[in-house]
């Protein structure tokens, strides 16, 4: 995984459970005329955990891919290496697929291409302009690099992308289309155009430009919008017996997956949260579990005034009395909102919470809003054994996904 905290799963887990924030003032480009000037940007440079693009792709390769593809490939390289799955036999390659999506794709690249077209004309548009910015080219590059010739697909469901990719990929395995799927999401839309667009939609935090690490504060009464983030999260999914036969390291089992649509508004969640409610309900039904079986919820929790409370009330309605016993946190408090990568990055945090018995905290939750009375794990990680972990993702367009993970069987 690649996040604003850094590169790699072990580094990320150490950072997030120690309450570190990856949100900083934006220095990489001009922001003085933008209302939101903070973001979760992937650290580049020499510090520990910094992202080194050269490790993933040569400068020549990178000229033909927008950065979201580089992030996605880096996350996929790590996941595939960790899985130990390096098929060579043709039939094994053909049973291995890729489903890595993105919410927006090559926004920076498209913006720059449009400027080139306007300034210099069509003859100066690179032959790599289209493949550098297409969303499904993460899956394309990953398949080429690793020789995975099975299903090659890409999800595009805004901020639910990463969760839908993992859920849908698991169903391809369940339906017999593949034995192994590399799945997740990648995003790198933190640029002037991305910030301007989300700012105009009044979605971003604007009141914490001088205190970046305090800007993402899910459920806190002073929250004022989400903080844009970038990065990628990718997992390797595998049919259980296939994994057992080769003695694979199994982190967790996907137990449930649920989807729903709000059919309500392009950006706002339906007021009573029934979209999220029904996605969670569907995932529980698919898992053949009850709300009482869930010990940890990794919330969508973006730090917007509207969304956080709606999700909280939907959880309380679905979980009833058990809402008092479940722990729910938002890791977006530390890394911001990674849009199309959010669901898959948060799936990884959820799996590690389950595996390690540690709940990552909700940073900056100083004063919960009225009615937000669940255990929201403020400020500090806590140890707690987790039987099943649930992860929510909700996206623009009213698209909702919910994943439930259980211990390796």
């Amino acid at each position, binding site marked *: 995984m690649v996040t604003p905290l850094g590169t790699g799963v072990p580094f990320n887990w150490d950072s997030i459970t120690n309450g570190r924030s990856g949100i900083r003032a934006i220095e990489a480009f001009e922001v003085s005329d933008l209302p939101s000037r903070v973001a979760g940007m992937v650290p580049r440079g020499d510090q520990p955990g910094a992202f080194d693009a050269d490790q993933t792709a040569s400068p020549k390769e990178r000229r033909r891919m927008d950065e979201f593809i580089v992030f996605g490939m880096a996350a996929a390289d790590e996941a595939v290496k960790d899985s130990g799955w390096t098929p060579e036999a043709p039939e094994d390659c053909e049973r291995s697929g890729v489903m890595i999506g993105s919410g927006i794709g090559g926004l920076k690249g498209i913006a720059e291409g449009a400027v080139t077209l306007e300034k210099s004309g069509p*003859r100066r548009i*690179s*032959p*790599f302009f289209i493949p550098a910015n297409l969303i499904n080219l993460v899956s394309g590059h990953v398949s080429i690099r690793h020789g995975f010739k099975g299903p090659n697909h890409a999800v595009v469901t805004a901020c639910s992308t990463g969760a839908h990719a993992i859920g849908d990929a698991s169903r391809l395995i369940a339906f017999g289309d593949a034995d192994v799927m590399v799945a997740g999401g990648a995003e790198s839309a933190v640029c002037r155009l991305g910030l301007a667009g989300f700012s105009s939609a009044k979605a971003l935090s604007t009141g914490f430009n001088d205190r970046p690490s305090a800007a993402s504060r899910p459920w806190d009464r002073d929250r004022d919008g989400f903080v844009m983030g970038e990065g990628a999260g990718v997992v390797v999914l595998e049919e259980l017996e296939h994994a057992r036969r080769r003695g694979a390291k199994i982190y967790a089992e996907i137990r449930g997956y649920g989807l729903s649509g709000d059919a309500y508004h392009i950006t706002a969640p339906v007021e009573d949260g029934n979209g999220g409610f029904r996605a969670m309900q569907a995932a529980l039904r698919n898992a053949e579990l009850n709300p009482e079986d869930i010990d940890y919820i990794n919330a969508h929790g973006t730090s917007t005034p509207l969304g956080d409370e709606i999700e909280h009330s939907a959880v309380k309605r679905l979980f009833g009395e058990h809402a008092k016993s479940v722990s729910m946190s938002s890791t977006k408090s530390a890394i911001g909102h990674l849009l199309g990568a959010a669901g898959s990055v948060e799936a990884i945090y959820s799996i590690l919470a389950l595996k390690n018995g540690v709940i990552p905290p909700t940073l900056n939750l100083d004063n919960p809003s009225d009615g937000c009375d669940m255990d929201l794990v403020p400020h500090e990680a806590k140890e707690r054994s987790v039987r099943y972990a649930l992860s929510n993702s909700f996206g623009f367009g009213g698209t909702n996904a919910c994943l439930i993970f259980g211990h390796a069987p």
Partner: protein
Amino acid sequence: MSDVAERVKKIVVEHLGVEESKVTENASFIDDLGADSLDTVELVMAFEEEFQCEIPDDAAEKILTVKDAIAFINEHTK
């Protein structure tokens, strides 16, 4: 070696990520230097930019080696 030849070779090295020693005048972009069809389009664009000239598509199709590029540019620029 002419100035044009040096500048052409520099562009080829940068765009194709190959070692300078491999970029001989007879080297074919596709057969010797590992370029694909998209790379060659990009190379031609880079030549146009560097030498402030226009290379029409029918001419670009005939630029297959380092030598071809140098010859075209010498002919069409001062």
